[in-house]
């Protein structure tokens, strides 16, 4: 078998003749490779159909200079066509290697039921199936949260099994290593808030209240939310990728067969790390946001730093700070749960790990915003 893609295109030729009334002799000559110009099968088919009562199909390949899989597929189609018309196909004129390939290709018949049909279901069917899948997904999420809560209870009783070393490494990853990005983003968010607020307040000559705006916005919500979204993208995705890869490598199965609960061993330390680090990061983020707002207040609005500081201090309340910190702890729990859930639900391929990380970030952010709305309403009523 010959044929490389660098060689020039050749020509193939095909002639049909009738040595006897019931036999058609197909002469193949020239170069029959994938990159060559070959005659269409329909020419032969038409010639065969034009002549009635043909019973034998024979070949002559003395003029054949080169061939590869292109000729094999051509002949398979031709032979199938001949078999359809109840013709006997004589392979003697074909080269030895070609005959063996033809035999191999037809040796194992197609397994019944193996070929999968893709039928496009009607629209309502698909809506129904997607809804059922969504309900099942919500059920999975609630089940996971329930198991996580049970594991936390075990933790409080001191019975949860995990490696303390891992908890310390996670705290470092979720806490210290997140400081640079939290610094940058919260500082800029504070500055943006101040800038937008300044434009509106300047219309009333009330620029000084920018300090109130930035202070209250950051402590009540923005500090917690921005930090949570940062952690969702950075740590939620990391948890999903790590646990997803462990699922692909059967490492989680190895834990289960040892009798160690993956929930206690993997998820509890991650939840603990995030729930303890998020409030600290949020506090830090709040301060930086106020600083960012202060920079705008001083440079753009001409407020003196002391005035800005005094105004902020007067506006902030302890309850506002507390609300922000409680929210941040809840967000931390949600990010950890979403990341770990998607990681453990991961399929067994590289693409599945990618999907798991994407899904973890999206789920985290959706849960954060939902929780924010619910908590805001609760605090409004209760506080």
């Amino acid at each position, binding site marked *: 078998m010959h044929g490389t893609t660098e060689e020039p295109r050749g020509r193939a030729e095909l002639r049909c003749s009738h040595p006897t009334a019931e036999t058609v002799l197909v002469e193949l000559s020239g170069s029959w490779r994938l990159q060559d110009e070959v005659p269409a099968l329909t020419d032969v088919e038409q010639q065969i159909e034009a002549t009635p009562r043909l019973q034998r199909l024979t070949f002559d390949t003395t003029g054949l200079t080169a061939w590869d899989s292109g000729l094999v597929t051509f002949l398979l189609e031709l032979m199938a066509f001949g078999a359809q018309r109840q013709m006997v196909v004589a392979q003697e004129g074909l080269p030895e290697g070609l005959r063996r390939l033809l035999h191999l290709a037809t040796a194992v018949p197609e397994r019944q039921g193996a070929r999968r049909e893709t039928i496009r279901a009607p629209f309502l069917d698909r809506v129904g199936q997607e809804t059922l899948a969504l309900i099942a997904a919500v059920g999975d999420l609630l089940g996971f949260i329930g198991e996580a809560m049970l594991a936390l209870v075990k933790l409080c009783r001191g019975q949860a*099994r995990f*490696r303390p070393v891992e908890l310390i490494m996670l705290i470092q990853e979720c806490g210290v290593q997140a400081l640079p990005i939290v610094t940058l983003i919260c500082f800029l968010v504070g500055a943006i808030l101040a800038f937008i607020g300044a434009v509106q307040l300047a219309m009333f000559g009330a620029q000084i209240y920018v300090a109130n705006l930035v202070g209250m916005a950051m402590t009540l919500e923005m500090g917690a939310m921005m930090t949570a979204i940062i952690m969702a993208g950075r740590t939620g995705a990391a948890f999903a990728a790590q646990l997803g*890869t*462990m699922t692909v*490598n*059967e*490492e989680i*199965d*190895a*834990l*289960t*067969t*040892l*009798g*160690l609960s993956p929930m206690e061993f993997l998820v509890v330390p991650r939840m603990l790390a995030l729930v303890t680090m998020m409030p600290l990061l949020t506090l830090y983020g709040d301060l930086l946001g106020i600083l960012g707002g202060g920079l705008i207040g001083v440079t753009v609005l001409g407020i003196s730093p002391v005035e800005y500081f005094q105004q902020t201090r007067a506006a902030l309340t302890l309850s506002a700070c507390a609300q922000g910190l409680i929210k941040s702890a809840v967000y931390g729990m949600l990010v950890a749960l979403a990341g770990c859930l998607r990681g453990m639900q991961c399929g067994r391929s590289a693409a599945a790990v990618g999907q798991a990380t994407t899904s973890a970030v999206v789920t985290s952010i959706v849960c954060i915003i939902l929780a924010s709305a619910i908590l805001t309403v609760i605090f409004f009523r209760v506080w």
Partner: protein
Amino acid sequence: MTPADVHITVNHLTMAYGSFIIQRDLTFTVQRGDIFIIMGGSGCGKSTLLRHLIGLKPPTQGEVRIDGESFWEASPEAQDRLKRRFGVLFQSGALWSSMTLAENVALALEQYTALSAARIRQQVALKLALVGLAGFEDYYPSQISGGMQKRAGLARAMALDPDILFFDEPSAGLDPISSRLLDELILELRDSLGATVVVVTHELASIFTIGNNSVFLDADSKTMIASGDPKHLRDACPDPKVRTFLTRGDVSGKTA
């Protein structure tokens, strides 16, 4: 065959993913000290059967009894207790990639025994030496070859001196010499520790070297079609499929 000799019993086990049945009505017994081979063609559900035996997948129907106790009907605490008596070697080793080999082997000892750190280190060194990996305690799984990962996985499976060892395709990816050495190690473990061994494999050399009991799963009829000593099945099994499998196609004269 006294009741005390029976270690694992499987009764009318049916395995399915949703409505897709993989194998049905499997019934067999593993005696204490057996080296039990689970074999069959590709895709017949051997690894799935192993997952049912080690507590990773509940059966759709039927039961799995360890020393007479039904595994899947026991409480979670009882199941954990039973699982601690298993040692499992997964097909690719499944070592925890963020821990060194020593930490991998030590985890079970740290969690389930009250041994001091020094004694745990001794045990870890022993287990790694038994599989020929002495000196590799501080290597991470990504830093060693596939064959070494398997041996480390075996050392981890032996950490708590288990009664029952499960191997999922232990010879996959090993050269013939390493495969032979692993077979000899399995025989040694059975003889010295008195462990019962369940092996999923289709390496004929290993099957005949170490196996003394087996079950043959068929993908077409989705049930078991033979059980017993592999050498006896090769010579005298009534079902031609089993004999063809065990002689690599020589019986009927066709290859594969």
